C-alpha cells in the first residue's frame, strides 16, 4: 500500500512548502527592518533598533506613507458608499439593463491594471486635469467599487427577507426598515468590503504609477527607490502595518471563538 502513505504525505508536504514559499519573503522583509543598513538595504550588516526608533528617518518615506493612508481612507469611503448602493440595487430591484450594469462593474476586475491605469491617465491628460493626490483617489475609488459590490452583494443576497418583512409587519416604514434593520444586518459585510478596499488601495502600484504625477504613495516610493536601494525605514513602516493587521485579524478571530463558546454555554 505504498500509494497510501505517499498520498497521505503528499498534500501536507506540498502545502507546507507552499506556505513557506508564501511567508519567507515576509519574514525577510521584517528581519531586514532591523538591518543596520546605509542607504541600501541589500546585504545584512548588523542588528539595530535604530530604524524602529526613527521610522521617518529616510527622506520622503513618511510623507509617502501618509499619502497612502489618506488616499486609502478617502477612496475606501467613496467606494464603500457607491458600491453598497449598487449592490443593494442589483440584488433587490429589477430594472432594465441589469446585466449590462453587472458587466460594467465586473469588467474592471477582469482588466489588467496596466490597461486601467493607462486609460485613465490618457483621460486625465485629455481633460487637462493635473495629476496628483486627487487623481490617485479618483483612480483608486474606481477599481475598488467593483470589489465592494461583489463583497456586499453576497451579503445582501444572504439576508433573510423574512426579517425585513417582520419589520414592516411591526409598523416600521420602509425608511425605518432600511436604517434600523437592513443596514445593521449588512454592516459586517460592509466593513469587510471596506477593509478589502483599503488593502487594495494601500498596496496599489501600477494604476497609481500612471495617475500620480509627482505625488508619492508608499508603493511608489518603494518602486522608485528600488534601484538605488530601499531604505530600511520602509521595511519598518511595512512591518508595522503588517503586525497591526495580523493582530487585528487574530483579535477578531479570538473574539469570534470566545463568543461561540459563550453561546454554547448559555444555550
Amino acid at each position, binding site marked *: 500500500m505504498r500509494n*497510501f502513505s505517499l*498520498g497521505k504525505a503528499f*498534500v501536507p508536504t*506540498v*502545502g507546507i512548502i*507552499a*506556505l513557506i514559499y*508564501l*511567508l*519567507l*519573503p*515576509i519574514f*525577510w*522583509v521584517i528581519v531586514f527592518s532591523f538591518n543596520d543598513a546605509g542607504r541600501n538595504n541589500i546585504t545584512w550588516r548588523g542588528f539595530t533598533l535604530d530604524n524602529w526608533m526613527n521610522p521617518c528617518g529616510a527622506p520622503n518615506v513618511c510623507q509617502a506613507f501618509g499619502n497612502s493612508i489618506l488616499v486609502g481612507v478617502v477612496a475606501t469611503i467613496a467606494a464603500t458608499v*457607491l458600491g453598497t*448602493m*449598487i449592490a443593494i*440595487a442589483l440584488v*433587490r*430591484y*429589477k*430594472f432594465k439593463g441589469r446585466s449590462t450594469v*453587472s458587466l*460594467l*462593474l465586473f*469588467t474592471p476586475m*477582469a482588466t*489588467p491594471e*496596466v490597461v486601467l491605469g493607462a*486609460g485613465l491617465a*490618457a*483621460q486625465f491628460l485629455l481633460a487637462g486635469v493635473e495629476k496628483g493626490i486627487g487623481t490617485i483617489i479618483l483612480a483608486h*475609488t*474606481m477599481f475598488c*467599487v467593483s*470589489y465592494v*459590490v461583489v463583497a456586499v*452583494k*453576497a451579503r445582501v*443576497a444572504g439576508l433573510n427577507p423574512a426579517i425585513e418583512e417582520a419589520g414592516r409587519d411591526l409598523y416600521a416604514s420602509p425608511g425605518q426598515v432600511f436604517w434600523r434593520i437592513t443596514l445593521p444586518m449588512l454592516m459586517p459585510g460592509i466593513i*469587510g468590503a471596506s477593509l*478589502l478596499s483599503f*488593502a487594495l488601495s494601500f*498596496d496599489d502600484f*501600477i494604476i497609481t*504609477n*500612471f495617475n500620480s504625477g509627482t505625488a508619492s504613495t508608499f*508603493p511608489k516610493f*518603494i*518602486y522608485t527607490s528600488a*534601484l538605488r536601494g*530601499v531604505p530600511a525605514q*520602509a521595511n519598518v513602516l*511595512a512591518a508595522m*502595518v*503588517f503586525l497591526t493587521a*495580523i493582530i487585528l*485579524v*487574530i483579535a477578531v*478571530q479570538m473574539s469570534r471563538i470566545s463568543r461561540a463558546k459563550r453561546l454554547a454555554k448559555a444555550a
Partner: protein
Amino acid sequence: MAFTAFAGNAPVIEQAPRKRSWTALVLLAPGIAYMALFFVAPFIQLIITSLQMAPENAGIGEYVTAFQISNYGAAIAEYWQHILRSFVYAIIATIAGLLISYPLAYLIGVKLRPFPMLQGLALILVIAPFFISFLLRTLAWKQILPSELIGTDFSVIFGLTYNFIPFMTLPIFASLQSLDLRMLEAGSDLYASPVTTFFRVTLPLSMTGVVSGTLLSFIPMSGDYINASREFLGGTGTAMIGNVIESNFLSSQNYPMAATLSVILMAIILVIVATYVRRSGTEDLL
C-alpha cells in the same frame, strides 16, 4: 469572479426581485455615473488614442486625431515578441501556481476541517501577504535567490507565480470547503482508489474554484510589469507587454502606441478568457 472566496460562503436565499421602482435608479445613479466617467470613458478614450498618429513636426506628446489602423500592425510587428512572452510567462506561472496552490487549498479546506483553530491559522497565513507591500516582498526574492538566476525567464516566472498564490488558493479553498466529505467516502465505498476519487469526484466539484483562481491569476499576470522590470526580477530579455506599455506611456510619451498595445492586450485576454470559460462550462462566474 466567484469572489465568494473573499466574501465568505454566505448561503444565498431566494429573493424575488421587487417591482421596478425609482429607488433602484437613485441607488444606482451615483455609482454608475462614476464608473461611466472613470472606467468606460477612459476605455473608449484608449481606443480613440490608439488610432491617433504623430504629425511630422510634432513635439513629444503631441498627437493628431486620426484613424490610423496601421498603428495596430506596427505595434504587433514591433512588439510581437513581448506579447508572446507575456502570455507564455502568464500561462506557465498560472499552471505552476495551480500546482502549488491546489494542494495548499486542499490541506486547509479538507484535511484541516476537523481542526478549525488550525484552519483559521492557516488561512491567516495565506492572506498575510496582503498585509505587506508586494513590492517589498518581490524585492526580498531578489535578495534571496542566487544572483545568477536573477534577470532570467525563471526569476520572472518565479515572481509571477509567487505574487498570485493567494489569489489562486482562496477560491479553490472556498469550493473545497463546501465539499461534502461523504462524497469522497462514497467514492472509496464504490471501489475508487484515492487518485481516481480525486480526478473523478474532488476535482470536478472544485472546478468553479479552479476556474476563478486561474482567471484571477492569469489576467493580472499577463499585464504585469513589476516582476519583469529590471529593478525587480527582470533582466534585458524578459520585458513583458506591460513594461512596453509603461515605457511608451511614461517615458517616451508615445500615447498612441501605448494605447494600441493596451487594446491588443485586452483583446487577447478577452478571447482567451471567453474560450476558457466556455470550455470549462462555468459561464455564470459572476
